[in-house]
């Protein structure tokens, strides 16, 4: 009977492979896709843990553009059950794919909200510097984005890339708002020349580079710079005269139906309600009525883009960015 050793072997391998092909949907853990920073994820996980939800979910981090691409392309066939993401992306994905289910939070938001997403945090852009490196290189402290285009900052500036990061968009909004298309293009072009290799795909990239002294100046999340300063690092934050623009991020539940969706809904609400105090501390932008923000977190030049943020607008601004490269 040894004739069939081979056949048996092949059959058993096929069997084993089939057995180990356990699919995500068969698993009962809720999958959360998130573009949030490490600090935000930590806050969410803590809240979920406090509510006894440990081990019932997996958080998968990815870049804003990567997650956005997946949402637009895959609709509700996406692997995730819950998404935390820049609000404008959730809006656009919903418009295109009608992929999220309605969700209601326990608090009232300041700005009007869609029925399918709950805001969880607000990001605000600012300039920050490493005061030690500035001293070392004998550089003046900049006060505006246009200052960073001066030749002495060559290769000492780091900014996030709008192609991958929504923080990068805050910078582009500030430039376009202040200088318009034509002059703005020139400013951005000169800025990019100074940035050189320090164009980061992640919004947290510039602050990390400034903290390690890899560069002297960065553009990124204001809150991160405030925290670094509070921790005693040689970091100073500067509200650029072009304006501190901001973005909100929201949580939404993918409409897949079934029992898992109930758990997903619970998780999403915990993130929006219970994680909110910690998130507000980390990202001090008031989103719900009754929330207050500490003095040092109040920016000097808080500004908003005139029209609602959408993926279409992002595409236009990305094209503007590319044309300036």
């Amino acid at each position, binding site marked *: 009977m040894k004739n069939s050793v081979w056949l048996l072997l092949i059959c058993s391998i096929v069997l084993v492979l089939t057995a180990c092909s356990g699919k995500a949907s068969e698993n009962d853990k809720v999958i959360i896709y998130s573009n949030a920073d490490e600090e935000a994820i930590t806050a969410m996980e803590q809240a979920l843990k406090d509510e006894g939800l440990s081990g019932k979910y997996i958080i998968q981090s990815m870049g804003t553009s990567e997650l956005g691409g997946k949402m637009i392309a895959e609709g509700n066939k996406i692997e995730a059950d819950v998404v935390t993401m820049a609000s404008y992306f959730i809006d656009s994905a919903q418009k295109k794919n009608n992929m999220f289910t309605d969700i209601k939070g326990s608090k009232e938001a300041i700005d009007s909200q869609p029925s399918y997403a709950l805001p969880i945090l607000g990001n605000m852009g600012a300039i920050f510097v490493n005061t030690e490196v500035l001293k070392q290189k004998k550089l003046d402290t900049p006060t505006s984005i246009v200052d960073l285009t001066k030749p002495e900052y060559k290769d000492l500036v780091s900014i996030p890339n709008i*192609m991958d990061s929504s923080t990068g968009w805050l910078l582009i909004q500030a430039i376009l708002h202040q200088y318009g298309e034509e002059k703005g293009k020139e400013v951005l072009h000169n800025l990019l020349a100074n940035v050189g290799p320090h164009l980061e795909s992640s919004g947290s990239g510039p602050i990390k580079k400034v903290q390690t002294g890899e560069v002297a100046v960065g553009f990124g999340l204001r809150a991160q710079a405030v925290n670094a300063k509070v921790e005693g690092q040689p970091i100073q934050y500067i509200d650029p005269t072009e304006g501190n623009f901001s973005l909100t991020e929201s949580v939404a539940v993918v409409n897949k139906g079934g029992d898992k969706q109930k758990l997903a809904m619970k998780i999403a609400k915990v993130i929006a309600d219970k994680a909110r105090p910690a998130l507000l501390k980390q990202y001090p932008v008031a989103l719900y009525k009754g929330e207050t923000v500490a003095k040092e977190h109040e920016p000097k030049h808080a500004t908003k883009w005139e029209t609602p943020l959408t993926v279409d607008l992002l595409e236009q601004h990305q094209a503007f960015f590319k044309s300036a490269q």
Partner: protein
Amino acid sequence: MHSTKRAMKIAFVPLILFFILFLVAPMLMTIWQSLYTDRVFSISPYLEAFTSSEIMMAMWNSLKVSSVSALVTTGIAFFLAYSIEMTNVAKPAKKFIQFGITLPMFLPTITYGFVLIYVFGNQGLLTKLIGKPLFAIYGFNGLLVGYILYTLPAAFILIQNAFYYVDKRFLLVSDLMGDRFIRKFYHTIFRPMLGAIGGAFVLTFVLSFTDFGIPASIGGTYEVIATTLYQTMLGSIPNFQQGAVISVLMLIPAIVSVVLLGALEKLNFQQTTISTTELTMNRWRDVTFGTVASIVAIVVLGIFAIMFVAPFTVAYPFNLTFTLDFLKRFIQMDELTTVYWHSIFVALFTAIVGVVVAFTSALLSARTTVKGHRSFDFIAMMTNTIPGMVLGLSYLFLFNNSSLKGTFMIIIICNIIHFFTTPYLMAKNALQKMDSNWEVIGELLHDSWFQTVYRVIIPNVKSTILEMFSYFFINAMVTVSGIIFLVSTETLLVSAKIKELQHFNKFNDIFILSIFILATNVLIKLICEFWLYKQKKKENAK
């Protein structure tokens, strides 16, 4: 005779179906995707790609940096192989040199970039020592250094093997004839080695051209075709059709290379006897080559040493106090350890199933006359040509709506196909060298074909099977390009996780994961070597 034929078919049919389903069909699907939009066939996507400055720039950058790195790597590899094979450098030094330059093979290429940043970056170790950066590490320079580290082991092994077949008696003849060094070198070494040197160049070029890990970590704003493909598919505005077009474009240099390799093969000398002539004594030569080659090995080891330092300090490079905190935290983090076990699982299954697939293919091809047995040579050529990223992407196209999506199975199959060529050739070479009459004798003894294979053939190629196993295992453990489009949250692997950790600049976790991969691969290698050693001892005792 009839039953033998039937037995062969039992092995042949499922295998060929496997390759049709997981190699031919996905590739056809990619080509289809690239040509078919909005229910119309058109070549306009290609015209669009050719007029897109971004894609053309990335393509040009890739060609440029890959050729330069192939040129440099081949040169270094030749020098190192020469030092090992053609000089009397002390044995321990030779062992050290070999160990040093082949070590990076056990690590994912995505790790290389981070290691380089920690050594050559503005706050890097070397930069701290010298006082200013040696060169700008992001972009072309970083890619060049990364590619050299990555491809040096492969080029070195290839050239070293070729040296084995150089007839050293000619060196003696040349000496006796009073040839000058250049003339002697050209006729006795360079000319016979030309095929291998060309082969090493082509191989290193293809490896660099198709790698995703190094540009993903250190490319900066220097766009190469691999990162462009990734961004096209997984950027904020995914463009599947353009992704398919880029995939097809990426095949062109690879196909040209395979054709070139075939042509270069003809340059190789076929030596029937292997000479064991002693090398001439030359102290000056030995010292020079030994020193320079050792320095190369020390530099490689030195660069990677950072991996073992950074995660064990409080805040590298500002506070170098030793700490085990990061390691402890790492071991407690479920998600990271889960990912590690995923990788082991995938590597193990890739190795086991891969060996069965490659060995059976080689067996049918080399030792049977079953109809179509030559098709495996063609398959091996195909799998050699297709870059891992392109293969992974073609799976995404074909299996996206199937139940295979997001499973370990598809990752394992992708790995097997991606790494098929080398183990297949290893097995085929070994099988061809064996006595061709064994099957006939087996049949005369009324053994079935399966019995002959099981009792006679397999025991005789055990060591080759082991080599195939470790090849599959190690490559599955380190690959990023092959699986980058296929992993999901539930099936995340270490190499892909590293890319995610990069998003948060978590270098300590990146290095600790890399150390785990390195240790696992070295362990597998050691176990295999030890088993081989025992096997040899047993045979000698007989």
